[in-house]
């Protein structure tokens, strides 16, 4: 478990990080919980690591109408976030990542930039319609979640960009969100992950709904068919299950399997987790 030799430099500001990146052609490292294991088994071998882990301005959650989550915010900080309108699905999912050591060290920005298909946060951010801020020397741009995750371990971030923050809306009282997950017993990654937001109208019926799923395909994806199946209907277990079935029909053929769970199994249990996320989300809407 020895990585190839590499240089290590540390940035104290975002500007300095971008300079160091362009000078060295290296890779950013924050918590290191995705990158270092890959380096140790030599699947990747950057010449230089640009450590952004101590750029304090990128750490923490700010409430400003919605929430701005700095890229260096740890999973533990997200899991502990207790603000009333902070999306419940997000803290719920963060609490399901890895183990306490991983949550204390791993960062939100590193997690989403790594774009692991079985990761939890991309699924939740997709359902929440989060916005990702990418900064380069030529300025900054905002990327919608639907455009951010582009493939297996691939995101819309370009080589000269650094992810600085993720923005999500606060949760209105009439709406709730939830994340349901089937754990891989070895890795703790999601075999199937389902994130849902559900708005409940005055008539008690579903007035708004977004469902995203992860773990099955190359990246997390929003399944509009699930929302269509539930909108205008009361969120009963029967209707949630029907919406779950819609997820199975909509997920397509590109479902991946592994030694723990085949593609067919993932497809078969997807409705269960979608329905659970929907029911819990609805129960959180007042």
């Amino acid at each position: 478990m020895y990585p190839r030799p590499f240089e290590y430099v540390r940035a104290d500001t975002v500007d300095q990080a971008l300079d160091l990146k362009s000078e060295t052609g290296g890779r950013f490292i924050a918590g290191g919980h995705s990158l270092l294991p890959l380096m140790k088994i030599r699947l990747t071998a950057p010449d230089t690591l640009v450590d952004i882990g101590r750029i304090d301005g990128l750490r923490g959650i700010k409430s400003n109408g919605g929430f701005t989550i700095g890229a260096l915010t740890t999973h533990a900080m997200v899991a502990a976030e207790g603000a009333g309108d902070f999306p419940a699905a997000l803290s719920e999912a963060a609490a399901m990542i890895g183990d306490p050591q991983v949550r204390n060290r791993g960062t939100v920005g590193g997690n989403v930039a790594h774009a692991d298909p079985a990761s939890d946060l991309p699924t939740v951010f997709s359902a929440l319609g989060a916005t990702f801020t990418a900064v380069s020397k030529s300025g900054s741009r905002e990327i919608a979640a639907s455009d951010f995750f582009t493939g297996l371990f691939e995101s819309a971030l370009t080589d000269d960009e650094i992810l600085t923050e993720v923005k999500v809306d606060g949760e209105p009282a009439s709406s709730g969100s939830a994340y349901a997950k089937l754990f891989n017993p070895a890795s703790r990654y999601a075999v199937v992950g389902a994130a849902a937001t559900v708005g409940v109208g005055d008539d008690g019926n579903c007035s708004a709904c977004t469902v995203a799923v992860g773990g099955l395909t190359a990246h997390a994806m929003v399944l509009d068919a699930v929302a269509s199946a539930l909108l205008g209907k009361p969120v009963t277990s029967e209707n949630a299950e029907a919406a779950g079935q819609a997820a199975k029909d909509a997920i397509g053929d590109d479902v991946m399997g592994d030694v723990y769970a085949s593609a067919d199994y993932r497809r078969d249990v997807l409705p269960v987790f979608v329905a659970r996320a929907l029911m819990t989300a609805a129960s959180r809407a007042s």
Partner: protein
Amino acid sequence: MSRYMGTSVKRVEDPRFLSGQGKYVGNISLPGMVYVGVKRSPLAHATIKGIDASKAEALDGVIAVYKGQDLVDGGVGSLPCGWTFDGCLTPPHHPVCIDKVRHVGDAMAVVVAESPSIAEDALDLIDVDLDPLPAVIHARQPKGEWPIVHSDMESNVSYHWPLGDEEAVNAALAASDHVIELDFANQRLIPNAMEPRACVAQWDAPDEHMTVWTTSQNPHTIRLLLGAFTLGIPEHKLRVVSPDVGGGFGSKIFHYPEEVIVPWVARQVNRPAKWVATRSESFVTDRHGRDHESTAKLGVNDDGTFTALHVSTWANMGAYLSTFAPLIPTALYITLLSGLYKIPVIFGEAYGTMTNTVPVDAYRGAGRPEASYLLETIIDLAARELGMDPIELRRKNLIQPDEFPYQTPVALVYDSGNYPGLFEKIEGLSGYSDLRKAQDEARAGGKLVGVGFSSCIEASGPAPSAAAVGLGAAIGLFESGSIRVHPTGKISVFTGSHAHGQGHETTFAQVVADELGVPIEDVEVIHGDTDRIQYGVGTYGSRSAAVGGSALVMSAVKIRAKLKELAAHLLEASVDDMVYDQDEGTVSVAGSPESKKGFAELAFAFTTADNLPEGMEPGLEATSFYDPVNFTFPYSAHVAQVEIDPATGEVELQKYFAVDDVGNVINPMIVEGQILGGIAQGAGQALWEHGIYDEDGQLLSGSMLSYAMPRADGFPMIEVDRQETPSPHNPLGVKGAGEMGTIASTVTISNAVLDALAPLGVGYLEMPLTAEKIRAAIVAASNGGGE
């Protein structure tokens, strides 16, 4: 009379372990040390057509690259198998392959470099030209066309080991009211000790003396094999040290290629050499466990009486016969098939087959969990067929307390036990009848709740040397123990057992302090160094207390006798009148307790040596070798409750109860820890762990991302209790405690899951009982496809 035996003395090892100050092989750093890297085969079976190491040799910091033939030319021998019997074929096992690789991870070349990182870089630069051959991975290889793993063997079957009267068994089965027949699998496990294997060696050229530090459970055995077979350095010029070792579970018993490669390199380059396995290397080189395929038939009459058992097992040996591999599916497995029951006739046979997989050898329980799994599963299926409660069916067939010693039909003689008593205890602890009532209610509510039971036995504390050698051992399985009393009365204890998590430094100090009547603080236990320990056989098979502890008791008896003789001389009394007070550590004259001598005072008298009885030697030290007269036979009854999520197939382990009889207990806290850890490990096999090979011999579960180990959050609080039936044949009355938890929990949890699914018509499912497998069985059953 004992002040320490039976008390939970805190582990003296823990301060150094908990504060990160353990002394492991990986911590050793010597001046001028070089680092060894091993180039490993990416293919399961291939001919080596050529190795081009020129780029690696040219890399800055690379000292040398060696190939298999270099080691052979340098005097390195084949790794021997230490357990063979008539008809057992033992193919050669070169530490570094010469012409062929036989499993993914097989060693192809060795790099020596100035740093571990350079060694790793150099490994990437070695080009090996491999010509792939078809692979064979399954244990069950009936006559037919299979790729041959070793070309000097006609088939891949290394041995066939039958035991019992097959004709009588077949006749009894034919006459039985019911015969339950089933194909079983006991899946391959990967041990994953916390500390990876490691080796450091230092060659002292002027003295022609080699020191090897290695992560071994039995350093003397490694020295013997290095001296006599693999390294060719005579035993008196070899020192093997196993310092703190971070877990073994059997996987560190065996003689490994790296234990030969590293000292050979150290002598070759005349610098200290070091190798530490990466976790990735551990997965493809540490000896794996289990991997049996079996067919079993149990005969039962309508009233529940067992009539006969017939078992045929194919045991996967992997690519080479590891040090003790042929023992596991034979004398540690077939002989355990009687369980706690009176089964009139039993026939068992094992075929050991070579495959293109990592060699398989002893792993916690080693043969006994395989036997218990098979027997306790088929008994549950019989109970279902008869409509009997699984506990009642077992109780009907139990060996009774007045029937010991009990001769089984499969060679063993059980020493002692009270099996009905244990059943009563587990029924009380678990509230068994209430669990069943709650299960009925849950089932009525549509829930899949299962209650699993098992009652298991194991043969621990190997073994009478004559029996062991008769069955195939290359060495006797006695143990040694020395007690050295220093001039001030402080004591060093030297044991041939080896601790790698068991707490010997505490329990053996308890034993010696009690035997001699001294404070436990005055006793230090030393182990794991062939230059300090007289001789040792090591730690496995739950043998340390029963065999190693008994050797120490023998030495304490000798010390007491010498102290009494001296006291009699000093007090001018007859030695027959001397009384040794083991509470106080004094020797007095019977009837006049004021006339006495203290332990330290007597100890010092052996140092001044100016007033000893005629003919008595100065010095106070005793060494003993204890050869047990039998195995010990601990046994257990465990109960588990699980609930299955019918939508996903996930299993929740909700309740677990264990009652074990491991004989007398030296340290209840340590024994409970062994039981709890064992239960967790066994649950790993039942629910999660699986070394999966594809048909090409690639290991698909070769990392912590894909090989699921038990985690604390997968368990409820486990409730344990004990029954203590002393072993009648060792001086401490102890039985083995290290493996029972694992042996029992695997099948208890598996039985609970199968019990949960029984109302759906699901029969037997192989382990691990993963969510997908269970859901598929539920779906098949609901489609009318249940068994």
